[in-house]
């Protein structure tokens, strides 16, 4: 007789994982290391690092990611800090205002941003890079502010009071106590903005930046039937994501325990 246990509730997810994560990954790895005829080859791998297009695109994508992450961080940190320290009773409501855009599909939001930018700039095509950064920042801002707020909110007030009692002024307290304690939030915010931005080509497409980033480059290879090189770029990108994640995890471990700041 069929015996039901709680473990079996995982079966749907396991099946999902098998079909939509593991199986595609195997296929991608297969294509990455074969040529058009199905023979094993490392050529795709060497292509990636010898082709100035892929390297250029990688650098361009990383640069966009870097700038977006910095802008997000610089804008989000003060807001999160003020919000976390304010004595307002309905902090969560204010926080919700920041998160609310996430409830609407991002392509719709970018369409709106496009119209606003057109109204301000007159012709979008003159500032493709600036537009990209604005669009990306708008898109990923909530992903930065949430972990920051969570981390700042959980800081034990007594530690800050202790710092003041020991004679530290506001600035010193911030540098020596608050900021280091909020590092888990900063790191998880960076992870959640930096990595997705690298492949988020829809924002570039919609804001008329005609330069490819990693996402569009992979797409262009697949559209041109070149699945092998496309898969290899995906694999390298996956490796980069893995390295960055491991690195930030390590950073998180060093700077303090993870206080549930990740989303």
């Amino acid at each position, binding site marked *: 007789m069929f015996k039901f246990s709680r473990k079996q509730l995982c079966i749907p997810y396991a099946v999902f994982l098998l079909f939509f994560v593991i199986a595609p990954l195997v296929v991608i790895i297969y294509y990455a290391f074969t040529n058009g005829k199905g023979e094993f080859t490392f050529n795709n791998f060497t292509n990636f690092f010898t082709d100035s297009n892929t390297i250029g*695109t990688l650098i361009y994508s990383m640069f966009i990611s870097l700038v977006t992450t910095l802008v997000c961080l610089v804008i989000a940190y003060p807001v999160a800090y003020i919000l976390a320290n304010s004595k307002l009773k309905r902090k969560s409501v204010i926080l919700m205002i920041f998160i609310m855009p996430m409830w609407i599909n991002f392509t719709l939001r970018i369409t709106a941003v496009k119209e606003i930018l057109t109204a301000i700039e007159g012709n979008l095509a003159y500032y493709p890079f600036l537009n990209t950064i604005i669009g990306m920042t708008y898109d990923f801002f909530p992903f930065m502010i949430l972990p920051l707020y969570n981390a700042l909110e959980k800081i034990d007030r007594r530690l800050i009071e202790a710092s003041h009692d020991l004679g530290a002024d506001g600035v010193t307290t911030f540098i020596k106590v608050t900021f280091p304690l909020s590092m888990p939030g900063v790191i998880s915010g960076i992870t959640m903005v930096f990595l997705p931005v690298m492949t988020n080509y829809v924002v570039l497409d*919609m804001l008329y930046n*005609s330069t490819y980033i990693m996402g569009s480059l992979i797409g*262009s290879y697949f*559209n041109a039937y*070149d699945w092998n090189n496309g898969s290899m770029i995906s694999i390298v990108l996956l490796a980069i994501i893995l390295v960055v994640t491991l690195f930030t995890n390590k950073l998180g471990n060093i700077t303090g325990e993870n206080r549930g700041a990740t989303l």
Partner: protein
Amino acid sequence: MIRRTLAVVFVILMTIGMGLFPVSAEEYEDSDTIILRIANCEEYIDEGHWGEDEVIDLESGDVFGNNPMIEDFENWYLKTYGKKVKIEYSTYGTNEDLYNQMTLGDTFDIVCPSDYMCLKMMDEDMLLPLSDEFFDKSNKNNFYVNGLSPYIKNLMETTTINNRKWSDYSAGYMWGTMGFVYNPKKISREEASTWKLFENSKYARQITIKDSVRDTYFGVLGLLYSDKLTSPEFKNSKDYNKKITELMNDVSPETIDKAEKKLQEIRDYTYCFETDSGKSDMVAGKTVASFQWSGDGVYTLDQADEDNFYLEFAVPKECSNIWCDAWVMLKDGIQNDKEKQDAAEAFINYISRPDNVIRNMYYIGYTSCISGGNDDRIFEYADWCYGAEDEDNTVDYPLGFFFTGDESDKNYIIKTTKDQTKRQLFSQYPTSDVLDRCAVMMFFDDEENARMNQMWINVRCFNLSSVPLFDWLIALGIIVFIAVLVTVIVFRNKIFRRKRLKGFKRIS
């Protein structure tokens, strides 16, 4: 107990869910229904449900799209031939998507790719030739062969691959040219009637270009060879059209390199490379000109008309591309099933019936390859759309070349407003001098395609060598700064370790 009940309910639900699919498949097998798998471009056939004010009231009777045409065909086939046919209709985005789908194992019976994809499929021996019965003019239900425009017929018969005629394998559906939709208040017709518009610095960053390798490559060749193509010697030479076709299908490495260089320059002059947004940006007045296929041009002009915004359409004076989407039957899907082939050919004939042609043209906005033969309803429809009564301000616009093959045929002249000769009518039915300079773009083999795709990637990717040294230094500075910052944070305990006081033990 509750758990067990839940589990039992789960199992039952799952069994029912899994059971549904085989049940419906069996239902087909049991009956004599012919299943026809059709794949077509998105929004490329009348889907019915027109509003009541959309009746096309021609003198010879009203045309109205009540039900989707697919449903109408199923009913018509049952009534005419007494056989049940069930259509499995699916859509795809681009020709390449369709081809990819088929190589991945999807099978279709009848599909509607563009000219070059038809030829590619012919070359790869994927297609079933149309049957002799299909070309039998005495059968009054053979609407296609009885209604095909002589102009398109000639085009399809003279286009060959491996000594086989395109027309033997494909039935034309919609056709058109390429050109520019432009705003005459901002830019003159003359400036918009040349491929040189791509690099006209007066309109820098105000022109959209298609994000499609083939179309843009064609345009760039037109630009590169502009002077040659417009020179009188070339224009008056024998086999003028043949020469254009040759020139515009040149995909040798040297030509591709030249095109790549040109595209790198053009890139900085465009508003953007677009797949779909070009039309709405044009209507919104954000751009002054937009590179479009003629059918999309009509759509753009119609949309602008609704906002009382006046736009026009021009075809470059050097040359243009004539494209034609056509229905083809696939060996793989039809196999040797005669009944299926009959149904597929009947489908082509049904959508080539003049009233259905009008429905599709109204719905899609493109121009059908069918002129109607002895049935004048399609010409009547063109007149219904573009004809004008006012004697003083009208001009004669001959359509004879399309309807009878004779340009001067007096029965096929539309009296229309002067504007229309530069607008929808012109983009739907270009004049014969435009068609003289139109070339079919052939399919390219794998190697040539790879070269073209690589060129497009080169154009679109961030060019490292274009970055000045100074920027490199700044970037390097930023990276070093971040690296130092991270290192300091990671190893701050080691760097800033205070001197240990004597007598204390370090607790770790």
